[in-house]
């Protein structure tokens, strides 16, 4: 514990020292990288009978590209920051639809369960929030908190047919273009190559309690039923940074 306190004190003192010497400049950047789903969004387990994972999203590791910027307030270390990013979190795999077919077959106790899926998770995040920067000559560490929204362009559509005694009973989970509240935080490391150009390494977390999902032809409450899909991603990106 003592060691930790000493290390933290030294780090903070160092940060303060550098911060005092260096100067903040508003900037914008363009970035791209990996977007990794977490939590229920990444869950690809149908669940157990009567205990289905209704909000399992079956999302996959994908990519993110975006624009980002920060505007410092009166040359202080505080800035107002904004990010606009586009994410693709993939689609359901063959194994996923097999799990869905088996899950719905069991849930409705039918002779045959069939599942098919098409479409991908594609969305836009728009986030704004306060940022604090620690400056070390050419290197800057930015810590940021964000709120905003996630706008879905599409989610995977899932079509199910449960067949019993030769009678098919189809239903579907439709692709969503809904918008939901989002929040998150990020830590960036910026290194200035010239006075106006630098590179930026960004570690970003974004979560949303959920975007609305529409289901059709669901007559009875049984089996997995996703009405709201939570979204949470951890993103690791590299980018080019441009000073104003």
């Amino acid at each position, binding site marked *: 514990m003592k060691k930790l306190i000493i290390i933290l004190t030294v780090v903070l003192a160092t940060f303060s020292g550098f911060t005092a010497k260096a100067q903040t400049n508003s900037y914008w950047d363009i970035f791209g990288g990996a977007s990794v789903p977490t939590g229920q969004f990444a869950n690809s387990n149908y669940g157990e009978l009567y205990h289905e994972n209704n909000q399992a999203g079956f999302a996959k590791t994908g990519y993110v590209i975006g624009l980002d910027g920060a505007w410092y307030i009166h040359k202080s270390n505080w800035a107002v920051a904004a990010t606009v990013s586009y994410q693709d979190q993939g689609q359901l*795999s063959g194994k996923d639809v*097999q799990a869905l*077919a088996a899950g719905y077959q069991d849930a409705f*106790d039918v002779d045959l369960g*069939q599942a098919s899926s098409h479409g991908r998770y594609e969305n836009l995040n728009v986030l704004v929030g306060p940022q604090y920067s620690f400056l070390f000559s050419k290197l800057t560490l930015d810590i940021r908190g964000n709120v905003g929204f996630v706008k879905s362009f599409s989610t995977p559509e899932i079509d199910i047919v449960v067949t019993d005694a030769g009678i098919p009973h189809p239903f579907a989970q439709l692709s969503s273009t809904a918008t939901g509240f989002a929040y998150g935080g990020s830590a960036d490391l910026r290194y200035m190559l010239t006075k106006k150009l630098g590179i930026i390494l960004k570690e970003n977390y974004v979560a949303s309690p959920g975007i609305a999902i529409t289901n059709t032809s669901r007559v009875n409450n049984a089996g997995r039923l996703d009405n709201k899909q939570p979204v949470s991603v951890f993103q690791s990106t590299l980018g080019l940074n441009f000073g104003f």
Partner: protein
Amino acid sequence: MIKLKHAVYVLLGTALFYTGCSSKSEEAVQPNIANETITQASLKFTNQANPADTPSCTYTFHLDNNDNVTSVDSTTLTLKANSKYNGVVYMLDQTQTPVFVVSNEIQQRENYHLFFYQPTPITTAPVISNTSPYIPGTPVTPNLAQLNLTIARTDQDTNNPPMQVGLTTLFTTGAASTGNLRWVLRHQPNAKNGTYAPGSSDLDVNFITIIH
């Protein structure tokens, strides 16, 4: 300004490249599996006015080693006239060890199961609705003495809005009479709407019924 232009081109180019990647569709069919078997189905009653009066009736399927039905037998349901009976369903799969209580499984899967109870003979067609336990299309025989029995389901499932199930019932008897009770369990996966038509029958049996 040139830098900004280049950056936007890079961003747009990357976006176009990725969005150009086609999205394929996945499909899966889960192979056929055997449903649970009902080897014995019983209705157990308790007279509301006399808890010691507990009639029942049982339908038994006798199976060979390949689970094919080789023979059946059923007991007679005998009820007192002008009485009210609370009924419960009890179903077993005796091919499993230990014996599996199918009626418990039906209760868990109540949102797509529905029981129907049809006394015969009937002299007038019963009123059919989504809360009626009677079977549409039952032949009406005005020239025969009817079985004086009315039935109401007393339980509900967890659909929204809730629908009846029929695992518990109220049997009300009238004057002494004889006839049959047809008992059907409809399996209506994602199709249950309170009516008889959707789905298929998991059970369809008859009991000789005497009201004395």
